[in-house]
């Protein structure tokens, strides 16, 4: 295995008395895509919330490319190159694609203390490129996100992560509430991550989705990792049996 791009050592998390993570150790290689499965309450969400800066671990360490990091908040996680796409997608439905792509990271023509005039021309141009890069077809960067289908929205979210050169993309149930066709599109996006050398951590309830798009399956139960095998050495049945 190459040097891991991200490594967790002995992560613990308690929520008001509930021991949600019990010493999780996990190393992910650069460009690898991990399928993280497990029942509700197994600790998947807690783990990815720690990686995306929403929560902080009570105990344990995280290493990013060998460097110890303390992920303070979602913005900090993004600065470190960890981008998260949530199930109820991270797009603002009332805004255009271009504005959504750059929300929180708008290119500015000039600025005083971080506030300033957005370079909207650049936002449009770059979002056209970013969307094309993930082979997504939408009419225009000015289209309002609420007019897009669920799969297209996830596509734009992935395009956004790519555009900002994220090293690690965490996808939290990105295929929920999507039609079969849309789901296949999203699974295609996930398979495409490797070509761009992006590491993917894909959380799903659906074993088949995970097996179709990942290199390695990790299963969690009761706050611990209970299973960890490459896709080639296991089967949907084996993992299902275990959970």
């Amino acid at each position, binding site marked *: 295995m190459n040097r891991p791009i991200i490594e967790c050592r002995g992560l613990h998390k308690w929520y008001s008395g509930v021991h949600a993570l019990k010493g999780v150790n996990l190393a992910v290689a650069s460009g690898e895509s991990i399928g993280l499965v497990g029942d509700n309450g197994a600790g998947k969400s807690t783990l990815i919330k720690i990686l995306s800066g929403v929560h902080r671990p009570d105990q344990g360490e995280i290493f990013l490319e060998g460097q110890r990091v303390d992920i303070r908040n979602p913005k900090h996680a993004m600065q470190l190159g960890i981008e998260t796409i949530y199930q109820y997608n991270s797009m603002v*439905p*009332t805004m255009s694609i271009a504005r959504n792509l750059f929300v929180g990271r708008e290119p500015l023509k000039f600025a005083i203390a971080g506030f300033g005039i957005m370079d909207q021309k650049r936002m449009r141009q770059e979002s056209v490129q970013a969307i094309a890069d993930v082979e997504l077809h*939408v009419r*225009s960067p000015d289209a309002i996100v609420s007019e897009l289908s669920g799969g297209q929205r996830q596509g734009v979210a992935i395009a956004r992560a790519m555009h900002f050169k994220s090293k690690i993309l965490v996808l939290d149930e990105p295929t929920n509430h999507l039609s079969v066709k849309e789901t296949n599109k999203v699974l295609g996006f996930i398979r495409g991550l490797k070509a761009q050398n992006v590491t993917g951590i894909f959380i799903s309830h659906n074993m088949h989705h995970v097996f179709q798009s990942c290199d390695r399956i990790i299963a969690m139960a009761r706050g611990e990792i209970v299973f960890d095998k490459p896709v080639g050495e296991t089967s949907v049945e084996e993992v299902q049996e275990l959970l």
Partner: protein
Amino acid sequence: MRRLLKIYMEKPELAGVVLLVVLAAVFQVRSNGIFLSAENLRGVLGFMPELGLVAIGVTILMICGEFDLSVGSVFALAPMVFAITLDDGVPFVPALLLGLLIAAGIGFINGYVTIRFAIPSFIATLGMLFMARSMTVVISGGFPPLLSSVPSWIFTQYVGPGGLVRMSFLWFVVIALLAGGLLSLTNFGNWIKSTGGHYEAAASMGIPVNRVKIISFMLCSVLAGFAGLIQVLRLNSPLPSIGDGLELQAVAAAVIGGTALTGGVGTVLGAIVGALLIREIDNGLVLSHVNANWFKFAIGALTVFAVVANSWLRRTARRIKVQVDNEPAHHRVSRPA
């Protein structure tokens, strides 16, 4: 053609402009040509900035996903603070700034209470509506000071061709341009829209959502206080009762101009069109010899009509999209395979 229609339908404030023109024509005929006379326009535009500024503030806050019912009370409190400190011998400019500072403070409290205790801003600002009004009456001591020898010309002086507008109108135009620019051109405007459009998404993208909300509350309050100052300098006396019911007129103006109560949607232009429509109807009904008590009925009916019409327009515009989608592919952002 269809494209133009869709663009038009997605902008409810444009429908408002059409209504504005149609109503102007109706009132012009009904009032035997008085409505559009310079003399009358002067009157309409003279009052317009006061409601307009409050409506702009309320609109920005509504886009951010929150609500302020206390603007009518702040409209009275800020100028009362100004008048009393002026009466105590403080110079004009510091007194004016103090009034605005108090307004900003009220906005901060509204925002802080809403966020800290996670209660609806409707409730937090309803409480403030009563408290700020009460403070206004208390500090006035029942006998508000008369304003004498103040440079009220900075708001009331007639300017422009034929003295068509007051200075206050110029202030209004400048502030409206700044507010419009803030919303559509700056990154902060993008944050306001995203916070109101989808709070969780904005927060997960690292937008400081709570700070954005508090600043929007403060902006809204300061604009209401500033509008109150304009009115008080026009009337030359700070009555503690001014601005009563203004909060609902401002919300009506925002909604008529296409601002959604659910947040994320709205424009400064919409707020202005809404405020203009309200002033136009107010004035036009009187000039048409209609019983002036129908004014509130007309505003109420227009508000409901506007929301129903807007949601219909939006649905229809979306259906047009499907057809545009079937047009040849050169309209699309595509990449050679």
